[in-house]
């Protein structure tokens, strides 16, 4: 009579892939009726699980998701963004051209220190506000696109 039976883990491993089992365990399975019965039970259990009905959604998931996807950015949108950026740049260049004498006078009337004290905060503020505006824009676009 065999006293040292295989553990449940070893029996499961034997059922799932006998080629991975040690020779000792394989030999044991050959002679031990108790473990063979357990192995058969596991085999049937696995077959039972595999025979279970597959879960499936009772609605058209693809259609629901596709409805909520953001609309594709069309070519016009992309061109419009570039045109807008170009226009803004043009406004700055034209403005700078027409105001060039005033700007020069302003620059020469200020000491370099004061000029930098004004210029740096203005630029920092512009960068900060621009970044903040861009983030807000992205957030709004995302909200509009998805829900």
């Amino acid at each position, binding site marked *: 009579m065999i006293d040292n039976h295989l553990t*449940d*883990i070893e029996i*499961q491993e034997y059922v799932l892939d006998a080629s991975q089992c040690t020779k000792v365990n394989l030999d044991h399975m050959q002679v031990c009726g108790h473990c063979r019965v357990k192995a*058969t*039970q*596991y085999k*049937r*259990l*696995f*077959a*039972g*699980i*595999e*025979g*279970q*009905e*597959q*879960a*499936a*959604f009772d*609605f058209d*998931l*693809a259609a*629901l*998701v*596709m409805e*909520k*996807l953001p609309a*594709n*950015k069309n070519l016009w949108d992309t061109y419009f963004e570039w045109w807008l950026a170009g226009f803004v740049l043009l406004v700055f260049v034209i403005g700078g051209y027409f105001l060039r004498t005033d700007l020069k006078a302003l620059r020469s009337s200020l000491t370099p220190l004061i000029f930098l004290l004004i210029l740096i905060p203005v630029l920092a503020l512009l960068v900060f506000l621009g970044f903040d505006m861009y983030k807000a824009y992205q957030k709004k676009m995302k909200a509009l696109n*998805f829900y």
Partner: protein
Amino acid sequence: MDLKFNKKLEDQPLVERVLHGDTNAFQVIIQRTEGLVAQIIFKMVDNKEDRKDIAQDVYLKVFQSLKGFRFQSKLSTWVGQIAYNSAVNYLRKKKLVLVENSSDSEDAGNISLESLYSAENGSLANEAENILSKKELAGILKLEIDRLSPLFKTLVTLYHNEDLSYSEIAEITQLPEGTVKSYLFRARKTLRNRLMPMYKMEQL
């Protein structure tokens, strides 16, 4: 070339098409992975309406994060991971338990079905009455699988129904492979222990 590598090769053009604005390609991704997502969500979420919301949410997340997908795993595994995380977040929000205590899961499982079939009290004496139809047995097994904790249910389903390897399941659940194996062994043992008193296993 192995099958996994082939799958990755199939995934890449599909993902690129989506990233270039072809939403029809995303529909193909949904159709290919819907089964796996359904298995995960059905095992972890009981409420029907919540399942619907989570499933949609999963694919919207997939769409938003597709740019960040680096093809280090199969696309389906990655989608499965998002589905699993969404379901775990749902369970957390609902304060539900993902994995139950082991001793409880292995030994205390016979209450409901015991009362129905009470095998040990001799009510199975009449053999003719005890031959359950295959359908009934499948029903009992389903009931017992459903009684497992959400994580155990999911692991059993992914391994036995979706034919995923331990490493793929580990990727989806972000658990160490050893833990996945250990949980699966425990889940199967629990099922066997619970089903044994109900009927002879050869009827399964």
